[in-house]
């Protein structure tokens, strides 16, 4: 009988929701933002549901900005770094109203979320995960008055473009730090997926390590998820059990990897967000984190001023788009100086990380003498330099 009962429940719900939907006409929408609905088919009821969580400000809203993240925005990692850049922007431009959505890992969900943001009146959307690019580009076509900025993206059009920090260079400096500190000459890298950028970072890391320590090897394992802490702990333990004594990572949140490394008494190097240092107070060497607040502010301001243009924006550490974390207590002054010198040399162009000739693990020439890797090559790179132990695909 219970089955019938639920069927009846459903019928009642069905009737109720239909009533709710059709019944009350769009009663006076909250005043403050009188932005017309973007899509013609959208009934005006949905448009301006003002978030009660946002403190009411006296400043009139000049722009509603939507930001979506692939993971939780307090993950002490990538998503937190992206979130912090948005918060910095909102602070710099007080008339901006920011709406954020976290844990949007896939394309279909990203599309739903961005459509919701546009219906809430967002005219600028920051999509911060690589899976957000396709839906963003698709929505850019149907919403010509909305601007899309994709962090780490590579496509550009009339109302969409991308921004990111110039990351591979910083990994070379991290390699220098790791190669100087290791005693076992074994470095460990926990990656999320075997994908182009991760492989580029690993290569850059190994090249940096080898530049100061020719015996240094980098061992690679993947968790096949951006945020599976149990797998991250598994992978970190596995690397340490093979004698690795410096751990670094390219997953969303550094917390599980670095906590595990610290508990096993090995060194660690952070990435994504400067907050990573708290997880490894003793074994911390150094790390890098995204500091894109200035970039996001610049982009937002240009949309407000109507001067926005699609640019392929990549900015260096010296531009303030990435920052070097403080060194840990175990790092000698000489190593600290060496790392800083390397960063300066990278900035000035004295060191070019992917300067040919470069070969893969099997000795096959991948970058000819005199050539360098292009941004496009890095995004789809699927080989490792000699000294890396693991599979790039």
């Amino acid at each position, binding site marked *: 009988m219970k089955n019938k009962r639920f*069927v009846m429940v459903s019928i009642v719900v069905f009737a109720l929701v239909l009533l709710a939907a059709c019944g009350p006409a769009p009663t006076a929408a909250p005043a403050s933002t009188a932005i017309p609905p973007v899509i013609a088919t959208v009934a005006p009821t949905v448009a301006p549901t003002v978030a009660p969580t946002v403190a009411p400000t006296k400043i009139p809203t000049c722009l509603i900005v939507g930001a979506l993240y692939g993971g939780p925005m307090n993950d002490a990692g990538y998503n937190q770094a992206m979130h912090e850049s948005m918060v910095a922007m909102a602070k710099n431009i007080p008339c901006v109203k920011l709406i954020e959505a976290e844990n949007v890992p896939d394309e279909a969900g990203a599309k739903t979320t961005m459509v919701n943001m546009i219906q809430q009146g967002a005219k600028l959307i920051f999509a911060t995960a690589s899976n957000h690019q396709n839906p963003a580009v698709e929505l850019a076509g149907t919403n010509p008055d909305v601007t899309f900025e994709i962090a780490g993206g590579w496509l550009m059009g009339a109302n969409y473009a991308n921004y990111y920090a110039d990351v591979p260079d910083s990994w070379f400096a991290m390699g220098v730090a790791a190669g100087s500190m290791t005693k076992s000459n074994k470095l460990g890298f926990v990656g999320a997926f075997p994908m182009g950028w991760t492989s580029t970072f690993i290569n850059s890391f190994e090249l940096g390590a080898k530049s100061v320590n020719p015996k240094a090897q980098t061992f690679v394992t993947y968790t096949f998820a951006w945020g599976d802490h149990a797998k991250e702990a598994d992978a970190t333990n596995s690397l340490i059990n093979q004698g690795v004594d410096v751990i670094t990572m390219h997953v969303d949140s550094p917390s599980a990897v670095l906590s595990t490394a610290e508990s096993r008494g090995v060194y660690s190097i952070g990435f994504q967000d400067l907050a990573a240092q708290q997880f490894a107070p003793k074994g911390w060497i150094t790390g890098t984190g995204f500091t894109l607040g200035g970039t996001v502010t610049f982009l937002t301001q240009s949309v407000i001023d109507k001067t926005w243009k699609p640019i392929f924006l990549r900015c260096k550490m010296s531009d303030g788009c990435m920052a070097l974390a403080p060194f840990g207590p175990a790092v000698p002054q000489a190593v600290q100086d060496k790392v800083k010198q390397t960063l300066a040399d990278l900035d000035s162009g004295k060191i070019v990380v992917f300067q040919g000739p470069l070969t893969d693990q099997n000795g096959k020439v991948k970058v000819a003498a005199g050539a360098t890797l292009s941004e496009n090559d890095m995004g789809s790179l699927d080989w490792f330099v000699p000294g890396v132990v693991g599979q790039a695909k």
Partner: protein
Amino acid sequence: MAQTADPPKNSGFFYQKYLQVILRNLVMILIAFLLFGIILLLSGKNPVLSFRDIFRSTLGSAYGFSEVIVAMTPMLITALAVAFPARVGLINVGAEGQLYMGALFATWGALTFSGLPAWVLLPGMALLGMLGGGLWAFIPGYLKSIGLVNETITSLLLNSVAPSIVSFFIFGYWHAPRDTSTTSNFVKSARLPTLFGTRIDLSFVLAVVLLVLFWLFMKYTRWGLEMRAIGGNSQSARRNGIPLKIYLVSIMCIGGAIAGLAGMAQVSGYYGLLLANFSIGLGFMGFLISWIAGGEPLGIFLISFVVAVIFTGGNLLQLTQGLPYSVINILLAFTLFIVLARPTFFSKRRRS
């Protein structure tokens, strides 16, 4: 892991006194919302605004309504994939895995025959999807039919195997140049056509047609009427001149094929590509929906609709109330709890 499945009821829904039924169900829904409201209050959110957001974002606009339809489509199909074998007492907890295998096979078709026109490619992908899901259901069906292992256990275990196989093909062979966790976007001819400029695609129509066919089959064919009796004992099967083993295996496979079709619809319609771990629980949701509906097509439709409203509404809650998206699962669970607990405010009968 034997399971006492509930006998289906073929009589109409409306024989009870309307007022009493409506009252009881109103109270049940109110309790679910009230409980969820308390949770929201405890976490410092405004329940009234939250409920308003859920309903406005789903039923307050044509777009919202279309998103509900989009969300309910795979649930309709996976619920059917569970309901059909359940008619003969087979418990298919494996729709999740069958969905993945259907998506896998369909994707192979989409990537290999991308040059074909849509009218050949799409039916081909649908058939491949059904083949994938059907093959995946053949394993538990066969093991059950020869009396070795219960289909509940096997289909449950295979749920954990299928996503790994999908990942194996994506990462190993099919991935896009820049993102190894997904394939490239399918070509236009491998995408199910969408309707009315929304994300509703042809699979919704297909799902409804399948439900109606299922209903007609159950109601008006001799086979359909006698399915349970046949599945229940071999003597009845013999009387009907049906070899029981082949019968059980085929029914399980048909269930799997339907789930595989849902997988095909997900990659060809909703996503437009295959990505690793694309479903967290669609098949399980189908199991729940089918079980609660007692395998009745109308019930499946209505319950899927309610579940889809809850899920779709959850997305806006995140934007306006700052709640994690998964929190909407609590409202869903409360509704399920109350249905499962079958409160007896108005009825003396405890159990059928």
